């Protein structure tokens, strides 16, 4: 339930419903505190160094996915793009290309995949859900056809170190400066730039956005290319982290990415969402998994909790919204009674 805040009076504005991105940050803080109370090892540097790499790629792709969902589209092919760009990276490197150029090629393949998605959705006018289910099979098929059952593992050591080692003695994996940089870039892009405002405008009301002279089709293509590019980056990082390029890298990752975005308070109907909510959701996922590992709770329970949180992320704001609606009604009624007196 969405409220038109402009229509509320200043007094009523204190009834603004709690949005899910705020709730998720609160949940994260609560989890960190209770986790460290339950198990002193939870908030240690070592534990973080184990936890953070797992959520790196998910976070990288979840951010452009957030923009895409805000604009009212979705991309299910991201995991296949991760696989394909990793395969291209591995194959071109194996065939004697410079490792930098090979990595760049991996990212470029990601951009191309995204562009194909974008053109099919925006130019030809096909539904993004159906298109990206198709390209999910298509891109994974290309990766399989290119790589077969083989794999590439002999990457230079300095590069694979980059994939899984930490910076010096700190808990931060070497990939994290890049990931944090991207979080900042996407934060600015989404919430402080014209590009972000246009994305929200498209998600809120496509017609209105069109009348406001926003080039909706091109904007959507750019969003798909952005998602493809970040999937390409994630593909290269994924290969380096596990030191292996093979066709089934990151199989099934798309649902984790979308779950992270939705858990971060992005509305599946478009027009609503924040980058900090999504970042918090990714860290929440990671810390929850780490805590479960520490406490030797079966990962199956983690899967169940993930699903429940996902349903909670749509159910709780709805209930809060209803409660809020009643409170506003009551406030208005008491006010009109005062007016009569």
């Amino acid at each position, binding site marked *: 339930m969405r409220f038109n805040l402009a229509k509320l009076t200043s007094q009523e504005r204190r009834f603004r419903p709690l949005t899910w991105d705020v709730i998720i940050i609160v949940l994260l803080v609560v989890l960190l505190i209770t986790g460290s109370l339950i198990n002193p090892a939870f908030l240690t540097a070592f534990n973080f160094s184990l936890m953070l790499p797992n959520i790196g790629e998910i976070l990288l792709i979840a951010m452009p996915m957030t923009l895409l969902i805000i604009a009212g589209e979705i991309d299910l092919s991201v995991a296949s793009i991760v696989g394909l760009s990793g395969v291209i990276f591995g194959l071109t490197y194996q065939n004697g290309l410079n490792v930098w150029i090979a990595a760049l090629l991996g990212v470029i393949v990601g951009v191309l995949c995204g562009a194909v998605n974008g053109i099919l959705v925006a130019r030809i006018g096909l539904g993004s859900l159906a298109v990206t289910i198709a390209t999910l099979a298509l891109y994974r098929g290309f990766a399989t056809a290119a790589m077969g059952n083989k794999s590439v593992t002999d990457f230079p050591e300095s590069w694979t170190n980059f994939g899984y080692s930490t910076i010096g003695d700190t808990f931060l994996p070497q990939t994290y400066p890049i990931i944090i940089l991207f979080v900042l870039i996407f934060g600015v892009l989404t919430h402080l730039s014209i590009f972000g405002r246009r994305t929200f405008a498209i998600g809120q009301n496509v017609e209105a956005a069109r009348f406001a002279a926003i080039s909706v089709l091109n904007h959507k293509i750019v969003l798909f290319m952005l998602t493809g590019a970040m999937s390409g980056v994630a593909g290269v990082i994924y290969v380096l982290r596990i030191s292996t390029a093979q066709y089934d890298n990151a199989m099934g990752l798309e649902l984790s990415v979308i779950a992270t975005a939705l858990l971060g308070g992005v509305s599946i109907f478009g027009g609503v969402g924040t980058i900090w909510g999504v970042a918090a959701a990714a860290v929440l996922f990671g810390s929850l998994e780490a805590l479960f590992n520490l406490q030797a709770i079966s990962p199956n329970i*983690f899967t169940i909790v993930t699903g429940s949180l996902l349903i909670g992320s749509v*159910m709780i704001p709805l209930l809060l919204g209803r409660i809020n609606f009643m409170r506003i009604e009551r406030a208005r009624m008491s006010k009109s009674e005062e007016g009569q007196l």
Partner: protein
Amino acid sequence: MSQKIPSLQSDNFKLKSKELVRSRESGILLVLILVSVATTLINPRFISGYGLSDLLLNTAMIGCLAVGLTPVVIARHIDLSIASATGFSAFLTAHIIVGQGWGVIPAFFVGACVGAVIGAVNGVLIAGLRLPSLVVTLGTLYIIRGIDYQFANNKQFTAEKLPTELVDLAQDKIFGVPILFCLVLLLALFGVWWMKFTRFGRDLYTIGSNPQAAEIVGIKVFSRTLFAFVWCGTLAGIAGVMYLSIYAIVDSSAFLNQELIVVTAVVIGGVNIFGGVGTIVGALLGAVLLRVLIGALVALGVAQFWQQAINGLLLLIAIGIDRFLSRRSETKIERIRAEKKVQTP
């Protein structure tokens, strides 16, 4: 597709729309026959007796799931938890019938009940609380699989433990047609009757075409949508029992990550992912086409690696054709409307 076919106002339109719907299913059938004939000409073993019944047996599961998912998609919803429901039903059914020493019929009954409960949970959350189906069923996808893992606890049931009648059922045939595929046909027949000739089914088309309007004209959106989800879950449960029969082995990862293949079959069958358009027959044909194509690729000796890419391409072509057809009917209807305006000033 953002533009919908406007409401049909004259017999002329009805005739035209009927033609269109017909052309869609007959189109798939045509492709199906073309692919089969072409492949048989190149490799005669493709459609020989054994090959055909094998093909139908392989289609039974995806076909069953496609028939289940179709009403949900027509009502503008989606069920991503369908593969988890199938896997969980397969394991739970195996657990119960092995424990109790039950046979085939109770197995299908148990599977259907497990699926129906899962479908009812989805349906209540989506139709009752009006939560978005994509998010809810993504959630239940995880929850059901998690429960499955936890419950199974690395156990598995193999052919020796499962009742022999159930394992043999996959080999049984009626007039050369596998009995499991006959079951799917029976379910599809009920589905066709329900979606085509009952108020209950027609309402789902209305809901899918325009949810707000359906609400306003007083259609019982809750009960219709709930039933669609229960139907989908039930068929997923039955497909789980088929899994037991066909593969004769089950563990907690049964049918993992197969949900999108079912969606692919349904969309290839001409069911519009945005609701309101499609038929059960089409979806079943879509599932068969998907299987025939895989079989044809194997028979033609195309490297297995290319199969997935070709699947994706097929889906793209299918939705492209959908788009083209709906565009064409839109322009037709607009033209007829314009002509009408000229006639009656």
